């Protein structure tokens, strides 16, 4: 499909069964590129923000075809609990 035409896969067929929230998974993947050690961050909060702000339009990019399946803006209830 798209990769055959030298274009990236945008996930338009929706998330796979293994993924609960595709956008969060992508942000997690991107964050793994940040310079973080096992014990503590080598970056301060401001530097992390600056780095993450390089990702323009994260909602449109990472959730383009998967937002309806995402738990974002939904209520998660504990099983068996009313209300």
């Amino acid at each position, binding site marked *: *499909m*798209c990769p*055959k*035409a*030298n274009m990236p896969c945008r996930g338009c067929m929706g998330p796979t069964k293994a993924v609960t929230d595709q956008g969060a998974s992508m942000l997690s993947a991107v964050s793994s590129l940040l310079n973080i050690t096992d014990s503590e961050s080598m970056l301060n909060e401001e530097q992390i923000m600056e780095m993450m702000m390089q990702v*323009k*339009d994260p909602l449109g990019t990472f959730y*383009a075809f998967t937002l309806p399946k995402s738990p974002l803006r939904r209520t998660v209830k504990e099983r068996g609990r009313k209300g």
Partner: protein
Amino acid sequence: MAGPIINDATVKTKERRITIDPVTRLEGHGKIEIFLDEKGDVSNAYMQIPELRGFERFCIGRHVQELPVLTNRLCGVCPAAHHIASTKALDAVFNAEPTPTAKKLRELFYMGQYTHSHIAHFYALAAPDFVLGPSAPSNKRNVLGVVDAVGVPIGAEVIKHRSFGQKVQEIVGGRATHPVFGLPGGVSKQISEEERAQMEDMAKSCVEFGKFTIKLFHDVVLANKDYLGLILNTDAYYLETYYMGMVDKNNKSQFYDGDIRVVDQTGKQVVKFKPSEYLDIIAEHVEPWTYMKMPYLKSVGWKGFVTGPSSGIYRVGPLGRINVCEGYTTPLAQAEYEAFRKTVKDLGVTGPVHHTLAYHWARVIELQYAGERMLELAKDKSITSDDIRGAFNPPKEGVGICEAPRGTLIHHYASDKDGLCTKINMIVATTNNYAAMNTSVVQAAKALIHNGEVSQGLLNKVEMAFRCYDPCNSCGTHALNGAPALQVTVRKADGSVAKTLRNF
């Protein structure tokens, strides 16, 4: 095969309101409301488009280079048209001149789109009215009924050549539906020699199929005096409007690139403009009873659902294009264009053809042109070059126009310095035709329904008045500036209106 059923028995209705919902054999949704006066004659009619999309809102803030992929989701029939208009808009936004190879590949891909789309409309959506007849039982008046009537071998040829159009789009564009190859200044995929040869073979077959379709149109439609009578019925299917379409420097019809020409009711050129000038030419009118806007010529003005030189209503699509052009660049399409002009000249028409049902004839001529142009481009061995991307610059603002199968298609974007979309405006083929379509429905209803006498066949003949435009209401209702139109009517206990609130 039994002959087509042109007329059926009417019944007298006491109803003052006739609703056709949903209307059928179009892309998207729509309904027609016909209001009768006390004598049972038509006082007015409306073609309402109850869909809501919203692309012009949710595309704001997206990466502008993603718009060819996002906006092509406007439609499942003509995504290629949106992809091409969008990619051309990106050429302008990024001030990027596509390479010659990229231009050829885009146009070749686009001829695949025309082949698929025009076959789909003529054979699946329009043919039931002509092969089976406008008054044939509705359970037969569909594509399966057509295949049943003409036979499986012809049906198989139809499906095969539509699939060729899709295959060409898939090879060049990456996907048959919702393509991805358009980039500012070029395309993403180089074509191999094997793929070129495969497309050349398919294009040769499409040229032959174009000939077959034109012959079929002559044999089934033009040779039938009842159909000719319908086409020439100036009471039901005739609007004297302006026309708009794309042409090259010799005023030959073009689909991928060129200037946009507008002619008046006599065929005289009103204006020829570049994409970047469209806002000087076109304005949009909004009616409270429908989600689709109604563009009109700014210099003439909106005068309501009336035609003639004082009304800015114009028509696009196959009839618009054939009326603004002075022929085609390929021999078989040009020959049929000359036959078309000669036929109408013999009927006393020397300027534009205002007969609404002539859309169908223009469409089959364009199917022939698309096949021939596809073959010209597929035979050109230079299309396998790796020179598929041109240089580009920081993004700003730009407009891209192409001729969608249903008419002139305009995409206009602006970008911030990060490449995120800050403004998007689209004037879609079907939207251009909406005012004329509604006027056509009113005209047909008034001409065909009298004294409350109606029938399924008569109502289908009213539908034929819009169907020939091949409307795509999914595309046309792409925007509503944010919120749904809402009207709240507060009534007193006796039913009279106390207060009306609305947000449009």
